[in-house]
């Protein structure tokens, strides 16, 4: 294993930041436009609390997916995160369409996959047992917090965690800046 953890070079981080900001801003425009269209057709107010909640959920999902797309598929956590968001959206679509038979099929498939994963991931959990860390419990918690973390060996987990944290902090910073600009 020769792949040492690569930090961001400044250029890399900057381009990632710009890519994220662009994608996220475009999503905000999309959400905003959709809302005004709705507003013209329906009578539901965009400032009602339920509408604000629904919209903030949409904004949150767009923030995470914009981030994952901006980083690209080189990192395991972005692939895992996008898959998670994709599956979530698919489930949501099925739920709202109320196609129960299809949803049942999907559910069955999911249960099967989870079972397979449980077998697959067992050795990975055992591999996390190292003298330096001497805390299985804490690595397990970390695995749950980093997308795709359950399938990683300990070195990848630590590398991907470092990268994930940098990106997440950057995402928060950009969202802050946008919110500040909008409230002025």
């Amino acid at each position, binding site marked *: 294993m020769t792949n040492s*953890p690569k930090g961001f070079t400044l250029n890399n981080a900057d381009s990632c930041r710009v890519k994220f900001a662009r994608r996220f801003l475009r999503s905000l425009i999309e959400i905003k436009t959709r809302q005004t269209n709705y507003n013209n057709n329906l009578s539901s107010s965009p400032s009602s609390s339920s509408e604000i909640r629904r919209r903030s959920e949409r904004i949150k999902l767009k923030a995470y997916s914009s981030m994952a797309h901006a980083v690209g598929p080189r990192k395991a956590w972005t692939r895992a995160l996008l898959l998670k968001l994709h599956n979530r959206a698919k489930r949501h679509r099925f739920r709202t369409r109320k196609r129960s038979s299809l949803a049942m099929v999907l559910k069955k498939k999911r249960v099967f996959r989870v079972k397979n994963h449980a077998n697959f991931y067992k050795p990975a959990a055992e591999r996390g047992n190292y003298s330096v860390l001497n805390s299985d419990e804490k690595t397990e918690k970390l695995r749950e917090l980093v997308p795709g973390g359950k399938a990683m060996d300990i070195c990848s987990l630590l590398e991907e965690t470092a990268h994930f944290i940098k990106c997440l902090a950057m995402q928060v910073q950009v969202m802050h800046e946008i919110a500040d600009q909008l409230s002025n």
Partner: protein
Amino acid sequence: MSSRRSRSKQSSGSRITDDQINDLVSKLQQLLPEIRDRRSDKVSAAKVLQETCNYIRSLHREVDDLSERLSELLATSDTAQAAIIRSLLNQ
């Protein structure tokens, strides 16, 4: 055959770990605002992992709060807002 392979994998796995993991853990520590400035030999790996989890959770909470704030901001239906977003997009 398969048992031999798995054993060799395990031994090479434990050989790389201690140094490499120490290195990765101290890199991780540099990213955590709470314990960034402490000397790395003063902070246990378990502590770094604990702080990492806390930090990730706090970042997720911030994303939640900011999404809500943005959602409230977008509720006002003035067209100037879209213009601001577009101007940000062109920067």
